[in-house]
């Protein structure tokens, strides 16, 4: 959610109602002293990072980018390469996506998918909101932990809370999160029940009675629920429901659909916010081209492909544990894990160094007109042209092609349910995303790096007592997808039957189904003392 923000020097007290303009801008000039990304990262840091790569290579030998592209093309078009999968980073432009689709056609594959996979959960939905409206809303309803997944929006939500010094935020989640901390009320529904809770709120707003609802099943009390309903009702015409997908929901597609229904019934705005800037635009182009998105993840996971092309995203970090095929072409900007493994690597540019169009979060088309400063490297679009063997024309109707989402029903990928009686493990995010942090926040700050050492699973006190565990003990957590041995940390606020594990810890991430899911949902696990 980093599209189109503007720089302002307005003091916060006056900026409180300025919405998106109160957010620090992405700046592109490496000579300016204030090149701050809206997400809190440093684009300047990324532009001039010591690990930025500028040379193309095949294996461990350096060649020109054109030669590597030619070799890659020849390798993929050879008879031995029958099944090719393509991954596109959510920061590619619409033009680059269309070029990638043309390349996929030439290679005879429909296995094309975007990364990060989490964004898939909201891609089929159409937003109807504005950032300014969030900051001025009477009530904002946040479903999921928006402050963790999308920190930029925190400022807008805080602005709304500050107006008139009222609290104006309702949070709905399955575990207490960073966002819920600031919300009144915070509704914590049992795992898998969030769509039901949202529909219950819709039914009350439509004239139903709280007394008729199975409140114990929904995990909320009548007081909090009626408070939330009143807050949403009072916001008719001036409220929003904001959904950020994440690892807290069994079926985020169902959650997003229920949130959209509530928005329509309550006459408030609806915003489904992705992690990567252009994920929704890319998804719509892929869906229109009838790409097998879910099949792509599955094929990569199972190692059933002969070649993998990843444009500006590193699947070895975003989808850890995948099997690397004999041909692995990668474009990127930094020396990530994939750089060492790739058979063919070509350096490319960041989104903020590109020209082109992206689909903004407000459903608007944003034109990028940034030129990479002094770089001798090309963006992914030109690289795709080189691999294709000629300049691929771009449709003039791109904007129309992404104007409407493609309906996918309950979602392209089935989610596994949580068996009754098991303990439910949630992923616990931290400031380092995707593996060791190199994928999205590659910084060598010791205090951030230290978080990689997070090795503790958080358990509710009741569960720890039941298992005879104290802080510092080690437990073995076993799930369908893998197992991990972690330290015990007691978290009194956690609900019975749930544990939190550090999702991005290399040891713990094996518990989650990275390959199958576009959605890193909670998983059922068993625990015993190690």
């Amino acid at each position: 959610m980093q599209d189109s923000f503007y720089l302002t020097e307005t003091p916060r007290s006056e900026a409180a109602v300025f919405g998106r303009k109160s957010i620090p801008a992405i700046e592109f000039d490496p000579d300016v002293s204030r090149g701050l990304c809206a997400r809190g990262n440093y684009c300047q840091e990324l532009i001039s990072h010591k690990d930025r790569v500028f040379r193309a290579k095949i294996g461990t030998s350096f060649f020109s980018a054109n030669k590597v592209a030619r070799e890659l093309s020849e390798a993929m078009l050879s008879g031995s390469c029958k099944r090719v999968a393509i991954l596109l980073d959510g920061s590619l432009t619409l033009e680059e996506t269309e070029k990638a689709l043309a390349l996929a056609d030439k290679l005879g594959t429909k296995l094309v998918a975007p990364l990060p996979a989490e964004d898939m959960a909201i891609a089929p939905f159409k937003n109807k909101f504005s950032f300014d409206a969030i900051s001025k809303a009477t009530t904002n309803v946040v479903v999921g932990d928006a402050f963790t997944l999308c920190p930029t929006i925190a400022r807008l939500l805080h602005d709304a809370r500050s107006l008139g010094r009222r609290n104006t935020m309702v949070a709905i989640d399955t575990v207490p999160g960073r966002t819920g901390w600031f919300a009144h009320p915070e509704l914590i529904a049992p795992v898998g029940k969030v769509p039901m809770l949202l529909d219950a709120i819709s039914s009350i707003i439509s004239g139903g009675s709280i007394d008729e609802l199975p409140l114990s099943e929904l995990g909320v009390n009548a007081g909090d629920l009626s408070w939330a309903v009143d807050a949403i009702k009072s916001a008719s015409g001036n409220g929003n429901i904001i959904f950020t997908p994440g690892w807290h929901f069994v079926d985020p597609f169902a959650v997003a659909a229920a949130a959209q229904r509530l928005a329509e019934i309550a006459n408030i705005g609806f915003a489904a916010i992705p992690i990567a800037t252009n994920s929704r635009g890319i998804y719509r182009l892929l869906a229109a081209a009838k790409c097998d998105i879910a099949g792509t993840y599955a094929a990569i996971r199972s190692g059933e492909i002969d070649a993998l092309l990843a444009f500006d995203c590193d699947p070895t970090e975003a989808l850890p544990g995948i099997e690397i095929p004999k041909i692995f072409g990668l474009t990127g900007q930094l020396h990530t894990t994939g750089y060492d493994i790739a058979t063919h690597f070509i350096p490319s540019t960041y989104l903020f160094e590109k020209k082109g169009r992206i689909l903004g979060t407000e459903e608007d088309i944003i034109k990028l007109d940034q030129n990479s400063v002094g770089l001798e490297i090309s963006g992914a679009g030109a690289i795709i042209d080189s691999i294709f063997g000629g300049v691929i024309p771009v449709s003039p109707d791109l904007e129309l092609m992404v104007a409407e989402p493609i309906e996918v029903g309950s979602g392209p990928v089935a989610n596994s349910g949580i068996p009754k009686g098991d303990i439910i493990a949630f992923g616990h995010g931290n400031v380092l995303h995707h593996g060791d942090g190199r994928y999205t926040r590659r910084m060598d700050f010791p205090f951030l790096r230290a978080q990689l050492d997070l090795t503790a699973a958080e358990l509710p006190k009741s569960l720890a007592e039941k298992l005879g565990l104290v802080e510092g003990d080690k437990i073995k957590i076993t799930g369908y997808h893998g197992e991990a041995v972690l330290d015990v940390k007691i978290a009194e606020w956690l609900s019975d039957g749930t544990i939190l594990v550090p999702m991005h810890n290399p040891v713990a991430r094996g518990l989650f189904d990275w390959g199958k899911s576009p959605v890193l949902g909670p998983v059922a696990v068993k625990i015993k003392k190690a």
Partner: protein
Amino acid sequence: MPPGSLFMEATQVKIEKRRVIIDLDRCIGCSSCRVACSRTHQMDLNLNQAIAEPVAAFPAHCRHCENPACAAACPKDAIVKGDDGIVRRFTFKCIGCLSCAVACPFGAIDISHLRNVIAKCDLCYQRLDEGLEPACVTTCVSGALSFEDPGDVIEGNLSGARSKAKPGLRRW
């Protein structure tokens, strides 16, 4: 010689009344401010993190006190309050004894060493000279940090902070 004239002429001194103010009702603990601090100070991290277990983590900025206890406690005069009001640490003089960290009533000085000297916020005075705000303030994604005269803040700029927070504190 008054301590302040070590680094600037008396005629050039502009008293800096503004301080970094944190609105706890907005801080989401994302650490962007600490990243900005580290980046601005050539990877030195001068901004300590306060942790209120198990509630929250937020930056603990130096208040640049009127009568800084850290400076009084320093046996080598390595911490000096300048005529401009900014309390600075002089790397060449600091022996890393941590007396200042113990003396600071706000926990703004980390007890861990930074290249054998203490780490201390200098209010990004070079950025101030350029008319910019401290890096932590400009990078704050939630609008929790502001750079204001504390006197103005008392006039009512903050949103009520924790007095309106709910009971049952929980957050990671």
